Structures are given as C-alpha cells and as structure tokens.
C-alpha cells in the first residue's frame, strides 16, 4: 500500500513537472521537439517525393517487374527499424560506400534512415488509393487520350486529400520511431537527440518529467495531425465531391 502510494506520488509529481516543462516552453524540450519535427518532416517529404510517384506507377503502369515490385514493397512495409538502422549505419560508416559523405551521427543520417523506413509505406498506401481511383477513371482518361504518365499524375492530383492521410501515416511512423535513429544518430545531446531517443534515455535514467513531457508533446502532435487530416478530408469532400 505504501509502495503504491509512493509510486502514485512520484507519478503525479512527474506529471506536474512535465506539464510545467511544456507550458513554460522549456528550452531543452523545445530544442528536442524542433529537431524531431525537422528530421521527420524532411524524411516524410523525401519519402513522398520517392514513394508517391512509385505508388502511382505501380497502380497505373503495366510492366514486367510490377508483380515483383509489389511483393518487395509490401514486404518492406514491415521493415524492422533496427535493421534499417544497422544497414544505414554500415552504408554511412567510414568504411561504408557512403562514408565519404560524413553523415553518420548527424541529423542527415537520421533523415536517411527514416526515409528508407517510410518510403515503402507511402508507396504501398499511395498505390492502393491510386489503384482504386484508376478503376473509376481508367476508361475516361484513356478515352481522352491520357498516356500512363499523364494518367498517373492526374490521379495523384485528384486523390491529393486522401494522400494527405498517407503522408500522415508516414510522418507518424517516422516521428515515433526510435531504433533506427538511435543507431545512426547516436543520441548525441544537442545534435541528434530527438523525442523518442530522449524518452528512452531519460526513462532509463529515472528522469521521468522530461520523458513524460516529451511523451505528451508526441501524443499531442499525432492527435493534432490526425484531426487536421480528418478536417481536411471532410472539407475536401464537401468542396470537391
């Protein structure tokens, strides 16, 4: 009973301290949050540039390697982050093929790893959405004379509000990821320490307030983005049908 009360007291004290860190915009906390956002948004942007055209090409195109590509892409959706981290580490390490770039233990390496991790997710989900649209649009676009490339671009544009959810899924996966960024970033204070790696570190040290504060921010970001995506889709449905 006493032990439980002690735990509850610790938790409530930690939560109060965490809330204080958040409401007072603690400099250290803000720095970590901003780095997390910068890394994950950049990775999402890069993954979108790669994954969305790839997904659209798979949905619309008919080429010999297509079935194999679909299998590989679907398999890559379940890539274990630590394995991605390990592979990127080997690529970027001094003896690796990309060692000359000097990216290891920098935010650039973390962007690299997260991009690899979420590109298959964005490509596969995009492919699904565009394929559904292609079923509806195919005859009309073909009748109008749209070739494969033009049809794919048209479908990407026409499904843009649904694709916003895809971006969100990619971003959610990126910002919540810990294994890969820990390996390739090194969790260096002030350089590569992001929300998830800080939560892991501070929890292991027993410093719960900062971990909890970052956890609250992380959840708030995810909830906010989900709400934003839902509002955008609802608005688009009313506005554009």
């Amino acid at each position, binding site marked *: 009973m006493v032990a439980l009360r002690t735990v509850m007291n610790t938790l409530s004290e930690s939560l109060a301290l965490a809330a204080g860190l958040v409401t007072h915009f603690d400099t250290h906390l803000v720095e970590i949050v901003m780095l997390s956002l910068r890394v994950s948004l950049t990775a999402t942007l890069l993954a979108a540039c790669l994954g969305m055209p790839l997904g659209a090409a798979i949905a619309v195109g008919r080429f010999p390697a297509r079935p194999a590509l679909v299998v590989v892409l679907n398999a890559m959706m379940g890539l274990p982050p630590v394995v991605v981290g390990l592979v990127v580490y080997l690529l970027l390490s001094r003896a690796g093929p990309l060692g000359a770039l000097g990216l290891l233990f920098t935010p650039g390496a973390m962007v690299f790893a997260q991009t690899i991790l979420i590109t298959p997710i964005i490509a596969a989900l995009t492919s699904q959405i565009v394929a559904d649209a292609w079923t509806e*649009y195919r*005859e009309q676009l*073909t*009748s109008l004379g749209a070739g494969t490339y033009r049809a794919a671009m*048209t479908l990407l544009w*026409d499904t843009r509000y649904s694709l916003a959810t895809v971006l969100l899924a990619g971003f959610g996966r990126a910002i919540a990821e810990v294994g890969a960024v820990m390996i390739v970033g090194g969790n260096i204070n002030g350089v590569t320490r992001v929300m998830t790696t800080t939560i892991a570190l501070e929890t292991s040290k027993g410093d719960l307030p900062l971990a909890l504060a970052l956890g609250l921010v992380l959840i708030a970001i995810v909830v906010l983005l989900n709400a934003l995506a839902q509002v955008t889709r609802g608005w688009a449905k009313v506005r*554009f*049908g």
Partner: protein
Amino acid sequence: MADFVTGLPIALSQAAAAPGGVPVLTGIDLVLAAGGRTVLLGPNGAGKSTLLRVLHGLIPPSAGSITWGDATTRPPGQAMVFQRPVMLRRSAGDNVRYALDLAGVHGAEADARIAEALDEVGLRTLAARPARVLSGGEQQKLAFARVWALRPEILFLDEPTASLDPAAARSVEKIIADIHRRGTTIVMTTHNLVQAKRLADDVLFLHGGRITERTPAREFFMTPRSPEAVAFLEGERL
C-alpha cells in the same frame, strides 16, 4: 465542325472481343462511314457497350482487325460519353480545360472553346463550381461540354441518358442533335426505343455478340427483318 478528318471510315473485319477473357463479340464485319447517327440496339448482354469500346479503341479486338481510316491505332478526333460521367476533382471549366490540354489546345483558344462549350450545354454560370458537386444531369451535360469543346470527328455515346430524368434526357438529346449538326458522326447505344427513333439514321441490331441486322432506322422500326429484332421490338424475352 470537327477538327479531324482522319479516323473514318471505321472498319471491323471478322472482329471478336473478349474483355477480361469472356467472349462477348464474334465475327463482326462493319464499316462506319462519316456523317450518320448510328444507334446500337439489342437486349442486355448483346455486346453493344463492348462494340462501342472496340470502335473507340478502348478494348482491342481479340481476333480479326479494326482500322480507323488508314490507321491501325486509334487516331485523335474521337470522343466518348459514358453512362456515368467521370469528373475530375476540379471545377467544371477546368474539367473541359483538361480534355483540351490533352488534345493540345491551350491558351486563348482553350478559353474560347470552354466558354462556348459551357454556353452550349447551359452551364456557363457553373464554370467555377467543382464538377463533382454538380447534379447527375449537370455532370452529364458537362461531359457533353467536354466533347463539344474537343470538336471530335466521331462521338461514341454509351447510354448517355440512362440515369437522367426525362427533362434532362431531352436536354441531352438536343445537345446530341447540335453536335451532329456540327458535322460529328454519332454512334450510340440506348435502351430507349423512342429515343432511338428520334435520333437514329441507322440501327445496328446485336444479339448474342453478333450483328444480326443493320438497316435505316425507319425501316427497322417498321419492318424488322431478323426474328430477334422482331422479338426485341415486341418486348419479348430473347
């Protein structure tokens, strides 16, 4: 006036079609010349829509051959309006612009054609309205505006008034007549025999994936030759 004069006549020689591996058309011999209004009639499953898609180049023949003028691949100058129009998620005007852009018509010429086409179908005031929020009848008219702007040599219509109320259907029929008057050859399917009487110069009757009769419309409705056509016109199950 149509912009292109290269894709006619369309000639099918012993053509067959099996979309999705299912045989639908067999042994089709047909020549469609410029200028007329041909209506494809026949019971459900006869192959009317499939024949329309073969003629438009959307479905390649599984046997036999098709030529458009001297070409073996579909030339420009064709358009098709489907039973349920597909509109892009953009404004009514931009849906017409998209079609023109694909046809290589841009700038001031495109602007003029869009205004003219929307005027023609009575949608000028709705040019900025998102196309997908228009009513079914308005969307079908927009599909015709797209066609009007393209000025095709030949226009395929797949039951274009099937999902419209009578007033909207008559309005669409008037647009079809206007498009034909401008020099566009019309090939359409319909289940509406009254509409077929109003619009057809020629009737092509299909049954079981074959053309069983091709006659001037007046003759078809007065004295159909094939037993299948007689049964169809009498409303009997085929």
